[in-house]
Structures are given as C-alpha cells and as structure tokens.
C-alpha cells in the first residue's frame, strides 16, 4: 500500500522541553490508525505539526504521491491539500446554524471571489442533507450550533470533517463525553470513512480503540514506543510500564 503521509525524524521543543523527539510515523491511503499514549506524550503536538500549526525544529513531513513537503505550507493550504482535523473539544461555529456550518465545510473553492459569488447548487444542498442524516442532525439543520448538546456538537464536527472530503482525517478523542450508543455510532462512521481514506484517531479509551480494530501506535515522551495490533502493544512490557500500568 502506498504511503499517504510520512513523518520522519521530527523533533520540536518548547522552551527546552522536547515535546516531540525524533518521531517517525507513516500511514497508507486507506488505513485506520489509533494513537494512544499517556498525557504529555506529544499526541496533540504531533497533530499540530501535521496540520501546520506548529513548525518542527527538524525532520520531514511528506504528503501524497508526489511526496510534497508540508513544512512551509500554511494551515489553510494543508487543509486544502486534503488533511482534515477534529479537535479534542468540539469546535463548531456556535453562532451559525448546523446548515451553515456544514455548507462552509463542504469541499469546494476556498478563494474570496469564488466564495463571495457562491450560491449553493442543488447537489451541494443534497450533500448537506445527506451528511446531516448520517450524523443524526437532519432535524436540527436550522438550529444554531451553539444550542446543540455536547455529543451533537462532536458529531457536527465529524460531519464537517466528512464534508471537507479530506484524504487524511486527524481525529482527537472523538468519543469524549458521548453515551455508549453514541460511541457505537461514531465508531461506525469512522470505520466507514477509513475504507476510502486514512484516519488517525487519538484516544484514551481502550475499549473504543479495541472496537476500531486497527493498528495502534503508542507514543511516549514524544517518540514511538510501540506499534502493532492492540493485543501486541498491550502485551509490551514498556507500554504496560509507562501507560497501562498506571
């Protein structure tokens, strides 16, 4: 399977603290990957580097078939290249309706002129309805996102992520604050998405990771500690010592 994203030898330090230490990571075109690790292991910083929010001190981040470097690209350019990100805390546009949120995220031209003269085509509106049904918000399209429950906001953000049609989804703790039934639905959406694109899920909840049934990468102190199936990494003594044993 060809590589979609390749991170190699990346390090970054904040005021002398090495948040990421010679980290290497690679993911294929259509693959699900769970990233676990204790607090401060560098999971969020890793996502910040890939999405362009943080510039690494050294190392390479290569993207796509043409192995394009993502370093030096702005967040918006990286997003347009096909990397979507879901934040730990649900971040949606609270003063805007669910419909407006989804329409803004919908894949399309992002330049000011194109957006200024944009009028939603029938296909776009149909796609928004379809997404809303998928995330269980079909009856809430006209409501403002700020009025939604915590779980609904998580889903709206997942819906926005799908609307972008990214080739790589970075998902930070998608199941936080969800009921068991909602978790199951989230798992189904992510597994479905991973059939056609790469999905990286950062998660603390081992039960949730188990249900994703995918390859797992364990981070510790900014580097990869272990990688493999969940059973493989949970049997690893070093993983038990730094993470599971606590």
């Amino acid at each position, binding site marked *: 399977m060809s590589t979609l994203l390749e991170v190699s030898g990346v390090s970054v330090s904040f005021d002398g603290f090495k948040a990421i230490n010679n980290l290497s990571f690679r993911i294929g075109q259509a693959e699900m990957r769970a990233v676990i690790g204790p607090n401060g292991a560098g999971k969020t910083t890793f996502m910040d580097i890939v*999405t362009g*929010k943080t510039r690494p001190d050294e190392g390479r981040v290569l993207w796509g078939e043409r192995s394009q470097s993502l370093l030096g690209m*702005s*967040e*918006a*350019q990286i*997003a*347009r290249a096909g990397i*979507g*990100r879901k*934040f730990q805390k649900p*971040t*949606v*546009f*609270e*003063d*805007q309706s669910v419909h*407006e949120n989804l*329409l*803004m*995220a919908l894949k399309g031209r*992002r*330049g*000011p002129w194109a*957006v*200024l003269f*944009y*009028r*939603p085509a029938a296909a776009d*509106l149909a796609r928004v309805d379809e997404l809303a049904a998928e995330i269980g918000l079909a009856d809430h399209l006209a409501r*403002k996102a*700020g*009025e939604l429950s915590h779980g609904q906001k998580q889903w709206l953000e997942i819906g*926005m992520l799908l609307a*972008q049609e990214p080739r790589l989804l970075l998902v930070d703790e998608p199941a936080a604050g969800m009921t068991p039934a909602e978790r199951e639905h989230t798992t189904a959406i992510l597994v479905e998405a991973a059939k056609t694109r790469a999905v990286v899920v950062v998660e603390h909840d081992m039960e949730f990771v188990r249900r994703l049934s995918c390859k797992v990468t364990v981070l510790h102190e900014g580097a990869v500690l272990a990688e493999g199936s969940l059973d493989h990494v949970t049997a690893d003594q070093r993983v038990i010592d730094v993470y599971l044993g606590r």
Partner: protein
Amino acid sequence: MRDSFVARHPSVLIFLALLALFTLGVTVLAEGFGIGLISTSFVKTLGKTMCLCLIAVAMDLIWGYCGILSLGHFAFFGLGGYMIGMWLMYERTRLIVEGSLAQGALPPTEQEIVAAIGTQIFGVVGSSEFPLVWAFADSLALQLALVVLVPGLLALVFGWLAFRSRVTGVYLSILTQAMTLALALYLFQNDSGLRGNNGLSGLQNLPGVEAPQSVVSLWFFWASALALALGYLLAAWIVSGKFGSVIRGIRDNEARVRFLGYSVEIYKLAVFTLTACIAGIAGALYYPQAGIVNPAEIAPIASIYLAVWVAIGGRGRLYGAVIGAAFVSLVSSWFTGGQIPDLALGPLTIRWVDWWTIVLGLSFVLVTLFAPSGIGGLFDLWQGRRHPDRHGADLGPNAGALREKEATE
C-alpha cells in the same frame, strides 16, 4: 433556501423603504424645493449624518462581522475627503483666477494661471509651488478614482503587513490607532502638501455651479442617501451568503476557519480594504457638506467614536450600526450645539458642551456592560428573540467573538 435575497432579509427592504421615505420627507420640508420648514444647515447636518451612517456600516462589516476592531477607519474617511477636496479647491480657484486675470490687457498663459492658482491655494503655508500629490487635481474623474484608490491602497498595504504577521485583538486596534495618528501628524505639517493644519476649505462651493446652497445641499443630501442605500445593500449581500458565514467564522474562531482550508488573512485583507473604500466614499460625500477638511478630522479619537457608535447601536447587525451612528451623532450635535441650558448644581455648573463627552463615555460603558446588543437589541425584544443561556461564555475563543448577550437563538 431558494427565496430571493430580499425575501430572506426583510430588514433590508424595511431599511431602504424608511430611508427613501426620510429622503422624500426632508426634500419636501427643505428650503431648496419644498416648503422651507427645515433650514439648509440642518439639511447639511442630516446629509453628513447619513455619511457617518455609511462609515458605520463599514465599521460593522469589519468589526461586527469580521471581528477586527479597527480604530483607524476615520483615516480612510478623511483621505476620501481630501481627495475630492483637492479637485474642488483647485477648480474653484482656477475659475476665480481666470476671471481676475482676464481683466488684464494680455490673455494669461497656462503657466501664469497655474502659478496664480498655486499662490492662492498655498500662500497660507508660505508656498506657491504645486506639490506632487496635486498632480491630478485638475481632473475630476481622476480625483474621484483616488477617493477609492488611495484609502484602498493604504488599507491594502497596512492590512497586508498586519494580518500577515497575525496581529490580532487589542494589538491590531493599537496599530490602527497608530496609523491614523501618524497620518494626522503628517498632514499637520505644512510641507505635507495639503496645507497643514489649515486643511482644505471652501468645499461647499461647487465650481461653476450657480445654484444656491439650499439646492446644492439637497444634491449632496440625495447623493448621501443613495450612497448609504447602496452601501447598505452591498454589505447586506456580502454578509448574507457563504462569504458572510466565513467572516463570522473568522470573528468567532479563526483557527477553525483555517483548518477548513480558508486563508483567513486574505479574507481579513479583503474586508479591511473594501471597508476602507466605503469609508473613503463616505468621506468624499461628507466633507463637501462640512465645507472643510483638516488633519484634526482624522485624529485617533474620531475612529474611537466610530466604534462607540457601532457599539451603542449594536454590532453584528447592519441596521444597528446605522441607528447608532445617526442617534449618537445627532444627539452629540444637539448637546454640543450650546442650545441646552447649563445645569447649576451648587458650586458645580454642568455645561453640556463640555459634559457631553462624559455622558457619551458613560453610556458606552453602560451599554458594553449591561446591554451589549445595544439599541438594535430592542428589535430582538420586540420580535421576542431570546439570548442563548451560555453561562457567560462567548461564542468563540477569539477576542472579537460574539458575546453571549449579543447572540440570539
């Protein structure tokens, strides 16, 4: 979703209808063509007020919708006034000079005329040479183009530098204050080429027009009303679609907009430049009615007043900005006009001319603390729209994000 623009935004139609009614009413009551119940100077005050409403619409676009608290938009307003003022002054002086030189035995040469105009205009700052910035002053078309181009270009360069460096929040506000202050200080100098602190004057006289001021004032009144209507319509159209969605997203949470793939800096720059152009047009209509433009007009305090108007009217809704600007500036000219009797409180005498700023400042603080949705919020009460209960949380992490009490459900 497929309704027409006006059907989806009835407030635009109501606003335009009220504006048309107001314009018609004033025309009928004015001295120029009507029954003379309204004095010419008050027609000018109303015309100027509409120009202030127009720049308030621009301010609402940049602050209320895009979340950028610019405290420098009066610089663009003043520049617009200077650009049209240059042509008005040049052309009027030329007519006068040509008239007086024609009395002589020999017809004057082109150089003699230009030199005489220069002496007339720049004598007050001890010069008679035309500075470079007056190169196009003899052409109305070019100066009209500069009304939009000069503020637009300044905003483009300033905005590009500021937004590219990701300067936001209060730092950007301070930077815009510095910009308008620097421009004012520069124009105060005699060798700035724009007559220093004298500014440009006599702008109320249109060159070659015989009509009395009572008629000219109505022309400008109509032009101001038209500009306000068009500016309002343009702003309403911009904020209604996906572009509006994106800039409101930038206001509340710009990092999230970036991760959706929108280049936030370009959007900010576009809105900043557009609003600067609108401000320039508003200024070009304002100063011929005021008669004089000088560097004091673009002092930092003017742009702060602009933010106060929009805050009192209610930001994030265009009619709020218009109401705020009209209400505060009219009340202001009433208080500072010296028609209200002083209030004697024992040893302290309250002279409203001096105390007005304190009243204004106090009402700004009170509105910000207790009624952030401003006068426009009264329409929410009337229509029964409620504020969401968010336990005091803003609608996004940005400094300019909508506050709980500004939002509606």
